[in-house]
């Protein structure tokens, strides 16, 4: 049997894809397209953010659809760290699934290079302020960012709590 190289390549790509689907791991450029398929369950609390710039309140959506990616994504990721007392959310996820890896020297060595360092977390609020200054085209004297928790009622959102994340 004399298979053409292109069929062999396609076969290997299919094999890699199959393995990644079984492991539920994405390995760029082998993308997995399972977004929005995971069961969500009853949603009790919804998290959003409120940005107070020199006593003027902005919501992430006020920045427009495209820019919201920049305003919201990094902030949400930063907040995920704070919820875990500074631990990297990915590290937390891995160690929840494989607690014994905490003892592994290899995992700890990789973690040192890959996972978030405390100085990166400390620098985040200052970087975030520069991004907001650029987006609003003005200098910010006082910035407060709140994490706002909502519950959903039949008429919309109802605030449960407001927690200060950044105060600069």
């Amino acid at each position: 049997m004399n298979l053409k190289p292109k069929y062999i390549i396609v076969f290997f790509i299919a094999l890699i894809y199959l393995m990644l689907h079984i492991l539920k791991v994405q390995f760029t450029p082998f993308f997995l397209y399972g977004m929005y398929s995971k069961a969500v369950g009853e949603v009790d609390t919804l998290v959003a953010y409120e940005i107070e710039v020199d006593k003027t309140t902005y919501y992430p959506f006020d920045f427009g659809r495209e820019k919201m990616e920049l305003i919201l994504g990094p902030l949400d990721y930063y907040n995920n760290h704070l919820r875990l007392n500074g631990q990297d959310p990915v590290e937390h996820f891995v160690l929840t699934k494989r607690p014994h890896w905490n003892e592994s020297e290899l995992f700890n060595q990789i973690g040192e290079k890959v996972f978030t360092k405390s100085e990166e977390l400390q620098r985040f609020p200052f970087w975030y302020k520069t991004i907001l200054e650029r987006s609003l085209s003005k200098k910010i004297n006082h910035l407060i960012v709140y994490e706002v928790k909502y519950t959903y009622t039949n008429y919309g959102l109802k605030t449960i709590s407001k927690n200060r994340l950044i105060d600069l």
Partner: protein
Amino acid sequence: MKQLNYMVVQHYSLLNKLFFGFVICIWLIRLYNDLLLHQLNQPVLPYEGRDPFYWMMVGLQIPQFIVGSKLLSLAVDFLMLTSALGSLFFQRIKLFNILFVLSYFIYFFVFNTFLGHHFHSVGVLFVSLMFLFKKDSKRFIQAFELIRYYFYFMLCSAFLWKLVRGNLWDIDHFSNILKIQHVHFLQANPSHWKADMIVYLINNESLSYLLWLALMLLQGMFFIGFFTKKYDGLLLMSYLFFIVGSWLFMNILNLDNLSWFLVLLPFGFLVLSKNKAIKKGSLTP
């Protein structure tokens, strides 16, 4: 369907112009929204996610190195624009296409690293690959076919994930997704007409379930494309409805993914050329 392949080759220049013209528009929109690498102000929090590729990149400090240097990040952005312009105006010089794929891929993974989320907007990335080949090369049509199949795989895979994870039996699924998806919109625009529509859908689980099924069906339809190209016109409409539905109900409008339309366009050209022939009387309907 050889006619369709013929249409692809015949309209190479137009497809190329449409694609790179669109890419330049995206670049300008990103510039306006401060989303180019040099505009990120040297971000500090890399997101590795659960993707070994990003673990390697972040571990090797590559994205940090690129955004850490204003000059280097500006060079990537500039290369992305100039190589797209070069690909648009000098279609025969393939070096521009190679440079575009390279610079766009760097932009793609560095952007994803610092945005706290790994986006699946891979339309530009994949569609650009077919222009690496010359119009008269056999590989161009093979690349076009492969990318067409990949696009169909992407949608079918999304459909299968939903099916396997039991979305068909989860009546509340879309209602719950809508709550999470629109929290920022509802927070900022509680009295907007779209907010009323979202609240109505959240409260009516059966209706939102039917909409979710319709969106799933639009994705599942792409299985047809693996067996025949005869229904590419139907799939073109299906993808159009999917995009409109995603925008209307999920507030998702991913510009990069609009470039997937390019793999469905040759069917449109085929229909147009047949209509022209019918009008001229050289072909009977």
